[in-house]
């Protein structure tokens, strides 16, 4: 049985994304949950499933969340404590409501970083991951001095630019475009003008990546409520999951690289355009890349959207940096993406900000950012995590 068209997002809520070191992460989570319940016109007793994307140590685990908010879910789940599992969580919720294991699932991403050190530093709870056997989650090898997720992202981008003989300055299109979108977004964290000169002159973090290539890790929470499509009411302005696929793994995957072109000994066998256009998410939805009116792309670092566009068949492998020039991803461009600013400028909330924006776009509620006649939207993350969403009439 296909999952396509069976489940809908019926409520969305978010906290403020400003740095709030004095707050509890439960306050952020509460703001998002209350917002999602109000948006769905539901009371908390209606929630009988809970999936938490990011738990302790930066967030609250599923049991703490249920206890704090007086929820009594009969289905709970939780994914790992870093990013990416956005589509996986929403897909699991869709499977749960479709199979009848629960009726309404609250999907929650809540985390707080402003009271801990930066990732890579000693006073961060993920310090020890960098020394684990086989390398850290972002290929860190702390004993070499290879700490922080930025390192793997920088090295993979260097490998990409060498392989395709591309000028790294082409990358400016990504942070500049998303910043322009954030300037139109009231809850975006980074709303100051960002010029190409500022981008080029910003301090390097780990070359070839610079300050504005890195998302600003902060505080925030987003909650979405998923139910069976037939239970959704028109007042809930449901957005339906038409296609989904999970995260892929293996020796040819790396968290910050296109398939085949990551750290350690990957094959350098990239997906062909035909293979990329045959990713499962398209098959489930019965749709193709050019049918997507608006995109959400995982962008904890600015090269990542380039790779997602290639691995999901918007362009050939190696053509992504050229593809995003001439404002293609900008509002008013041919393929608007991250229209609220993405992780680079709106907020680093693991991509939940982008999926929330896609829901807003498909409901026609994006105000000055609205993409005209947005009917189909896609969330795409390198590594596979992807969704195709449809608005009313989908």
């Amino acid at each position, binding site marked *: 049985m296909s999952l396509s068209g069976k489940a809908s997002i019926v409520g969305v809520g978010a906290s403020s994304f400003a740095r709030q070191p004095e707050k509890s992460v439960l306050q952020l989570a509460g703001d998002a949950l209350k917002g999602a319940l109000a948006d769905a016109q539901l009371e908390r007793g209606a929630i009988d499933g809970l999936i938490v994307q990011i738990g302790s140590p930066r967030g609250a685990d599923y049991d703490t969340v249920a206890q704090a908010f007086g929820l009594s879910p009969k289905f709970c789940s939780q994914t790992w404590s870093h990013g990416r599992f956005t589509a996986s969580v929403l897909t699991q919720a869709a499977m749960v409501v479709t199979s009848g294991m629960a009726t309404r699932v609250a999907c929650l991403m809540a985390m707080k970083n402003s009271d801990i050190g*930066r990732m890579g530093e000693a006073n961060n709870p993920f310090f*020890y991951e960098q020394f684990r056997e086989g390398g850290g989650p972002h290929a860190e090898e702390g004993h*070499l*001095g290879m700490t922080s997720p930025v390192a793997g992202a920088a090295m993979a981008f260097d490998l990409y630019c*060498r392989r395709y003989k591309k000028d790294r300055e082409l990358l400016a299109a990504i942070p500049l475009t998303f910043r322009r979108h954030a300037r139109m977004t009231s809850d975006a964290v980074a709303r100051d003008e960002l010029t190409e000169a500022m981008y080029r002159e910003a301090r390097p973090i780990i070359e*070839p990546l610079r300050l504005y290539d890195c998302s600003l890790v902060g505080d925030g929470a987003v909650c979405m409520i998923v139910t069976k499509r037939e239970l959704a009411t028109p007042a809930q302005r449901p957005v339906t999951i038409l296609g989904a696929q999970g995260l892929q793994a293996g*020796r040819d995957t790396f968290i910050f690289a296109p398939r085949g072109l990551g750290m350690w*000994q990957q094959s350098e066998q990239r997906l062909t355009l035909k293979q990329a256009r045959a990713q499962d998410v398209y098959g489930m939805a019965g749709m193709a890349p050019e049918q997507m009116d608006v995109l959400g792309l995982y962008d904890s670092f600015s090269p990542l959207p380039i790779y997602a566009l290639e691995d999901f068949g918007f362009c050939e492998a190696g053509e992504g940096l050229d593809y995003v020039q001439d404002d293609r991803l900008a509002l008013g461009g041919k393929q608007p993406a991250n229209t609220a600013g993405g992780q680079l400028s709106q907020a680093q909330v693991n991509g939940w900000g982008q999926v929330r924006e896609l829901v807003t776009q498909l409901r026609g509620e994006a105000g000055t950012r609205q993409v005209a006649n947005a009917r189909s939207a896609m969330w795409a993350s390198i590594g596979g995590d992807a969704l195709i969403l449809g608005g009313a009439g989908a």
Partner: protein
Amino acid sequence: MSDDLQPIINDLNAPFWAGAREGKLVLPYCVATQRPFWPPSPMSPWAEHAAIGWREAPARGVVRAMGVYRRVFLKAFEPLAPYAIALVELAENVRLHAHVADAHGANAPKVGDAVRLHFRVLIESGQPVLCAERVRG
């Protein structure tokens, strides 16, 4: 745990670190396909039911990519900045991360350069770890 910024050494990876102390690059390989691989695993990435062995590999390779640390995240490594981490490809298609000292110096390897891998102690009371230097001439 690694409060002393040291790698975790256990039965799975001990031959690598024993080799490092002797200045030798020792890698796991799949006995069936004769292919070395990294990181260590108790199963061959390629062949079913294949035994895993360890053998010395030629400590030479080519730099495929680099990241240069302009911001240092751990105090112990501050005196070494700007250093780089290189992705070094060995002849047998294994790629390893290696520390590159003085990344902006005239003698530092660049992407595409042939390098020699060696083991060096980087921080006080540390293990010898993998470093890369340019092959001259």
